[in-house]
Structures are given as C-alpha cells and as structure tokens.
C-alpha cells in the first residue's frame, strides 16, 4: 500500500507530523505509522496546559498489535486535544492527517521546525523503512 504524505506537514523520524497554523501546530501520526500499527483502538492524549520538550513522549497510541509512544515533534504547550479520538480512535486509521489529529500545541521555538523532514524526504524515509521490514 502506498504511503500518503500531507504536503502541508513536517515529519519526524518517529513518524509523527506537525502542521503549522500561525503560532500553533497540529500534531498526529503519519499514514505510514497507522498502516504499521493496523487497527487503532485507543489514543492516550495529554492534558491541556501540559508542556513538553522536543522529542518528549506526549501520548500513547494503542492498536491491536502494539501500544507505542508518541513523541512531540517540537517543544510546546498543549492547547487542545482531539476529544473525538476517545470514542472513535479509528479516525487515526481513516484520516491520519485530518480528523485523526492528536493535539494542538503552542509552538515554543519555530526554529525547531527546521530539524524536521519535508514531505518528500519523509516519504523516501518511510518507504525505506517499509522495505527494511517495518519500523
């Protein structure tokens, strides 16, 4: 199955994305990540007001296969969480870059965005990971 990427996002090596809107960023996991995890049954999100540094664990995504940590792509404060995921975790499978977002953050340092992969670089990275037998 082909790996979809969203041209508006930046990506981490741990398969999270961030989509910047002004001072804020929406964060979720990539299409590749949801394919690897298969059916997602639960998403554990942080509390509003929590702050995390770049690369820190901010949540857990649980599928029928595994429970995996999610790392924040850039440092920031949680300003909103996707409440829909509590009842419909499958949104992550159906629409990983849209309705399946995890958290909205206030980005602390926009400079950190430069460390992330651009869409095409991530697609190649994920395809390599797929050829090497998953992540």
């Amino acid at each position, binding site marked *: 199955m082909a790996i979809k990427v969203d041209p508006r996002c930046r990506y981490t090596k741990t398969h999270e994305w961030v989509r910047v809107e002004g001072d804020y960023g929406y964060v979720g996991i990539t299409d590749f990540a949801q394919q690897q995890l298969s059916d997602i049954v*639960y998403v*554990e999100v*942080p*509390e509003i007001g*929590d702050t995390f540094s770049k690369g820190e664990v901010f949540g857990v995504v*649980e*599928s*029928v*296969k*595994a*429970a995996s*940590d999610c790392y924040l792509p850039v440092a920031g404060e949680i300003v909103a969480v996707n409440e829909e995921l509590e009842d419909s975790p499958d949104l992550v499978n159906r629409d990983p870059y849209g309705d399946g977002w995890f958290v909205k953050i206030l980005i602390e340092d926009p400079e950190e965005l430069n460390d992330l992969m651009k869409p095409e670089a991530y697609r190649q990275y994920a395809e390599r990971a797929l050829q090497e037998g998953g992540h």
Partner: protein
Amino acid sequence: MTYVPHTAAERRQMLDRIGVQSVEDLFSVVPERYRFPEVILPKPLSELEIMAELREMSESNMDTQHAACFLGAGAYNHYIPSVVDHILSRSEFYTAYTPYQPEVSQGTLQSIFEYQSMICALTKMDVCNASHYDGATAMAEAVIMAHSVARGKRRKVVIAPTVHPEYRQTVRTYTQGMGLTVTGDETLENDLEALVNLVDEDTACLIVQNPDFLGRVHDLSGVADAVHAKKALLVIACDPISLGLYKAPGDWDADIALGEGQPLGSPLSFGGPYLGFFACKEEYVRRMAGRLVGQTVDTQGRRGFVLTLATREQHIRRERATSNICTNQGLNALAAAVYLAALGRCGLARVAQLCYHKAHYAAQAISVLDAYDVDLATPFFKEFIVRCPKPVAEINRGLLDYEIIGGYDLGQVYPELEQHMLLCVTEMNSAAQIADLVEALEEVAHD
C-alpha cells in the same frame, strides 16, 4: 528419554578452550576441606519406616488443626469448603502456568474471568485484574498506577498508619528510586481527617485500609470527595470477608480497591502462596497492572475468552509496560472463585456475621477480666485490641501451654501500643475455644 546436555568430547573441548585440566579444577578456589565433604547420613530406611519417622517429626509442629488460633493481622484462619480443594486438584488447573498462548487455554481464561467478575461484584468496582502475588504487592502496584495516572507528575503518596505494616514496607520497597515521598504513617495520631489534610496538589493517592490493621471499621464518608477535589486517587485496602457485612470500596467511591485474597479459600500455609486482588474504576483500566481477561464471541457468535489490553504488558511494551507483573496467582485466584461461588452472597454474609458476633462475644468476655482492657466503644469487625498486664510475648508463651495461639504483638510496629495484643476471632473459633482463651488469659496474667 535421557537428557544429555553435552558429550564428553564437548566437555573436553570446553575445558581445553579455557585451559583447565578437569571439571574438578574449576572448584579449586573452594577450600579443600569443603570441596567434597563426607556427608554422614543414617542408614537407609524402608518407606514404611520413613513415613513413621516423618509423621513423628510433623507432630512436633503446632498447627491450627490442633490448637485454637486467635492470630490474624493479615492472614486469616477461615474454613475452606472441601469443594475448593476438589476443583484445585484437577490437573487441568494445577499444572497450568499463566497462559502465554492464552486463547488456546479457554478453561483457564474462563476461570480467571469468573474470578474477576466475582471480585468486581464483591468490591463494587468496574474492572478487576487476574490477580497479584499478595495484598502487599497489590498495594505497591496501586501506588505505581496512581503515579502513572498522574502521568508521573505527582510525587507524594499518603498512607494511613493503620495500613498493614508489611504492606507499607512493600510500597516503599517497590517504589524506591521512583522519587516518591511516602508519608502519613509516621504516627498513629494521624487519623482520617489528618490524612485527608495531607493530600495536596502533589499527591498521587491516599491509601486507607478498612477494616484497618487494628480491626477497626471506619466511616469513610466524604473521604473520596476530599481526595478527588485534589485530583488524587483514593485507594482502599480491605478484607474481602468483611465485604459480606460492610460497605464495599466502590460504595466509598474508591478509585482502586485491593487486598489480601487469602481468606477466600487459601490456607494459612506458613504465609503463602497468597493472592492479591486488585480492582479499579474503568476509566483507569489502561493504567492497571497485571493481566485482564475479557469475554467476547468468536466468528460464529459463540462465547469465548481473550486476554485484553495485552499490548500494555511487558513482552510488548518492555520497560514502558504498566507493570512487570504479567503473571497471576492462578491457583489461588481459582480457589477464591470457587470459594465465593460455593458460599454465594448469603454464605459470605453468614461467614462475616459469624466472625463479627464471635469476635464481639470474645471481646466482651475478655473486657470483664480485671487484668485486661478492651476498647469496646470503637466499631470493629473480627479483630480487636487487648491491653495486657505484661509483655505480649510472655502472654503468648503462656497461652501456648493451653494449646492456644495468641494474638499479634502490636508493640512490634507501634511503640505506643507496647503490651497491646491484636486478637482475631473467626467462624473457626468455637464458643468453647473462646471460653478457654478467656480462662487462659486470666491464668497467664497471674503466673
């Protein structure tokens, strides 16, 4: 089939590789006189003779079959219906380890599921796991879980001084290195109100025991509200037998309920193996340690059982698992399930009532003795405090002459309760035994 781990040639090869002549040389660091000591054994006996000798040796033990037992303090002498051992003795159950390929072990899973369901009904909690080693480790897991619910941000644990002293020790042992502060149990003067006041924004949980270690029953009204107002969890440890008579942890709005399951069909057995039961509110199920069996249907709609939330366990989540406990006390949990099924709702209530009435009868009778004091004003279940005229160890030595196993010496853990004994009375203690105890206490006081 003989199991041969390696051949003589392979052994030679290994010895040559490390430059040693013989296997014996490997033990050269052990002083020679200890290396191959002569073991002096008596001459061989026939099976008949050995059985006679072992029986004679075993008869020098004192046990609860031959002595009246008034010792409790966390391990209780209750009657075990014969059906419990009958089911336990089935090899399908007693040879099975915790299921590692769980779904092929439908019988084992069903028995665990039934155990979980009955513990939920008893504690009035939403979910119950497949069990822990004992009450003490279940409490330690509760602390780790409360810390995890608070996402590791709350570092204080308030624990009542009247929680079983060994449980408190176990909590400290399990959580060392986690940077937690365990407090509240420094003095018996810390009552419920004082403990609730210790709960603050940095507190992960408040742990109370009810009936407490001293046997006393508390009204926990308002405790959960106060604890929840600080966004901390309320953990209640309890004696499962007491739930036949008193309000359950769920009635007090506890977030986690746990306790020692030994009273439910497991023998005293020198302190183990016992059973830690552990139940919580559904909202915290993903933080719960241990294994959880769920009921579902197969592709043809037939009832079946599965291990749920297994992705949180250590074989998948490694060091980030909710706990390193993936096993359970299967046989003891089964004993608890059979015990509860055999007694039923009314039977369990009857056991609790018998304990209550016999304990109160004994307390009343002992309070009449001039040399002893019993606090009859504070509500208690099956254990009560007796102030003794001399050190408890002396009283207990005296009681043994009357073939009576006396109570727990509270001075061991509470300096302020020097010369105070915790006596336990269950349905196993007959009126005659209680009369003997009262008489013996009187005699021992004047020896």
